[in-house]
């Protein structure tokens, strides 16, 4: 569930189709810049109620999902 919600947030912010986003997808492949990362993290705050720092998101969507799951525990 966590991954799917994050995937949808990232699809919305990057303009990429959700079905093209996998845990291995790198941010750079989606044209995501540093401010888009912050936008995604703020959307995640609204959806999951957890705060993830911009410098801890790793390189891939899967890295971010793992970080959010860690923050939820």
């Amino acid at each position: 569930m966590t991954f799917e919600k994050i995937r949808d947030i990232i699809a919305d912010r990057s303009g990429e189709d959700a079905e093209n986003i996998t845990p291995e997808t790198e941010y750079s492949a989606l044209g995501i810049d540093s401010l888009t990362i912050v936008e995604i993290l703020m959307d995640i705050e609204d959806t999951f109620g957890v705060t993830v720092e911009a410098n801890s998101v790793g390189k891939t969507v899967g890295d971010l999902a793992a970080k959010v799951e860690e923050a939820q525990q």
Partner: protein
Amino acid sequence: MGFRILGTGSAVPERVLTNDDLSTMVETSDEWITTRVGVHERRVAVTETTASLAAEASRRALEMSGVSAEELDLILCATITADNVCPTAAGEVQRLLGARCPAFDINSACSGFLFALETAAGFFARGTVKKALVIGAERISKILDWTDRSTCVIFGDGAGAAVLGASEEDHYLASELGTAGGADVIHIPAYEGNSPFRTQPVNERPPVIFMAGQETFRFAVGAMTEHIRSMAEKIGVTPAGIDFVVPHQANLRIIAMASKKLDIPMERFIVNIESTGNISSASVPAALDEANRAGRLKPGDLVALVAFGGGLSSAGALIRW
């Protein structure tokens, strides 16, 4: 005694600098700047000074107000780019307008106009002024690194002003000022000087704008949403009850995120960043003037002004139009 806004004015330099112009100077493109920042073009001073822009915006505000320069009891100018350390920009405006009242500058970076408005409110509350001129004026082009594509595409030059008049019914309903520290987030070093006694410079960085984008973005959205929620609560309304928000125009994406968080539709945000860029303390009064002259603001409307910037500073004002 309270006050109300009698008139507004703004002024920009003649020289238009488009994104295409910038793409010949640094590695960037119109598409990149438009989608990442929201700016299409900005104005840059070629012959204009901070004081001349401030004076022009002030003349327009005075004209709309039907107030003469001689009637002014106070001139405050918010700026981080005064032409001189002294005389102040406000002092130069006083001279250029032919006014005789006290005049001084206020520096709280991009939030400066709202800090100046709050300062003026104190003078009205003490009953020591009847007419005040409050200005935000900037020549940011002089403190930019024009080889740094991450900052030089964002900013512009310009000025905005408002003439305030004493009023039994206070139209300044709520206000908030904040300073949060954060020299590592937004930093503009001052001229170092050449004292023979100094053993090391205060700043290693050159005297141009340095900004950490991610931290600024987070701070900006947080400050805007908190000030608006808190001011609305102070007067017993919800953010949805605010008719217009005049935000500091730093980045369209910051405004869009605040709109989403506050659940106030973008149509109720006054946005002119596409043609001005970020003009620091001038951005709120210039956007307010644009909306005012376009007839968007109706008497009785609840208008929230909100700003954030270096300091880190932030401020909000809730005004009954």
